[in-house]
């Protein structure tokens, strides 16, 4: 049985582990050790990390249904905020390094290219999630409303994986795996919702 205490203890280690890649890539970028096309590489790594963290938060919710590791859910907020952190870095790399703040071009790019549209909407939906993450906000909004807002994680996950799927030119294996995981986790939730009233009867 893993208690809340166990999971709380793991938080600082987890914090450093998840933060570390961003520091490493930033360092490698500065010293010119990110390959031949460093801006592309940086953007890809940051985006992939963000997508993986989003999926991890969904997994945590599912895992918390298992009694023995129920308290794992206390890790979800931190990982969710890290996902937002990586999305922000990914998006700023695109705006600042890739397109040098050429806003006219960027707006056109977001409108015209479906994969960028998906990614951008996914980013927008993450903002209310990140900004209502504190205990204070949960109290202020009430748990029911807060929970409703946080259902946005589903479109966020779907759009983010679609963003990756469309970007890949030929070998779609990796994005398909992510989409499959997201779909399974979603199905599990729907299944749970449908069966609950039956059990109550």
């Amino acid at each position, binding site marked *: 049985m893993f208690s809340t205490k166990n999971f709380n203890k793991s938080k600082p280690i987890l914090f450093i582990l998840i933060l570390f890649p961003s520091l490493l890539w930033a360092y490698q970028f500065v010293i010119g050790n990110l*390959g*031949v*096309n460093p*801006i*592309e590489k940086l953007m890809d790594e940051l985006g992939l990390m963000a997508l993986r963290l989003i999926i991890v938060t969904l997994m945590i919710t599912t895992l918390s249904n298992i009694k023995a590791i129920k308290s794992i859910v206390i890790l979800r907020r931190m990982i969710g905020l890290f996902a937002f952190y990586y999305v922000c870095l990914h998006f700023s790399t695109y705006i600042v390094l890739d397109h040098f703040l050429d806003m006219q*071009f960027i707006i056109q*790019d977001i409108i015209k290219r*479906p994969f960028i549209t998906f990614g951008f909407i996914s980013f927008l939906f993450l903002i209310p999630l990140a900004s209502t993450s504190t205990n204070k906000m949960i109290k202020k909004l009430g748990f029911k409303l807060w929970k409703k807002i946080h259902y946005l994680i589903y479109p966020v996950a779907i759009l983010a994986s679609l963003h990756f799927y469309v970007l890949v030119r*030929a070998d779609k294996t990796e994005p398909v795996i992510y989409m499959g995981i997201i779909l399974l986790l979603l199905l599990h939730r729907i299944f749970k919702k449908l069966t609950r009233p039956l059990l109550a009867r």
Partner: protein
Amino acid sequence: MKILGSEITPYKTYLNRRKFIEGSFASALLATVSSSVLANHNTDPSTYNQFMNENDKVNSYEEITTYNNFYEFGTHKKHPHLNSGDFKPKPWSVKIDGLVKKPMTIDLEKILSKVTIEDRVYRLRCVEAWSMVIPWQGFQLSELIKMAEPLSSAKYIQFVTVFRPEEMPGQKKRTINWPYREGLRMDEAMNPLTILATGLYGHEMPNQNGAPMRLVVPWKYGFKSIKSIVEIRFLDQQPETSWETLAPWEYGFYANVNPTVNHPRWSQGTERRIGEFKRRETLMFNGYEKEVAHLYKDLDLTKFY
């Protein structure tokens, strides 16, 4: 920019050419060099930079050989460099068939003994909106076409890449319907800019760049420049090409570099030159407008992209 001392006579023709080329706003470097250049194993960019216009600097040997799209060796840019070690480009022969007077299977050695190897420094623009400048060695495709004596009914040429899943691990996975195929219209194939390249930077063509012989069509997106060619077919109809078959809404048969025709995934208006921080404007026909625009004067380039 360094100018080569005039006392080095063998390169004088280079310099004369350079003047002409800058005047016509094309930086294709057209000069015949002795085959010794091929054996020089030269990786010094300055050898080539002095013949380029101020805007273009050749990319380093490392950049050109570690960042490649060659899905036969894997879909990541570094895969061709990492996974092409087992590929055996020697011995090599090419099958020439279809609408020709002399269908044949010919050794590459034999082809090379009959053609003139030249240095060609070309811009390469990938459809993914990055670009490089590469010093190729090769010969004009037109020389090989003349050898094959095409029939007057031959209007198109199709090229086929070798299929060797044992040596090309990417081919074990069906990302593309192997073997990779590409094609050109006959007048595009005969254009003097179109070459079959057999070396770069004075090296024999590295495996990851399409050993031992690949096409280079500098005014088209990089995917047209098919690598490791084993078959050349002369046809009367527009041939099937790999990327067009995979995603016709994204990749056309012509695939001319064109900043005004949008691609659903990448803006084609700008590009990142590998090694540069800021993006640069993409030029019509990749800057080779003078040499090739006449080929398309009757073609609606927004339809035939």
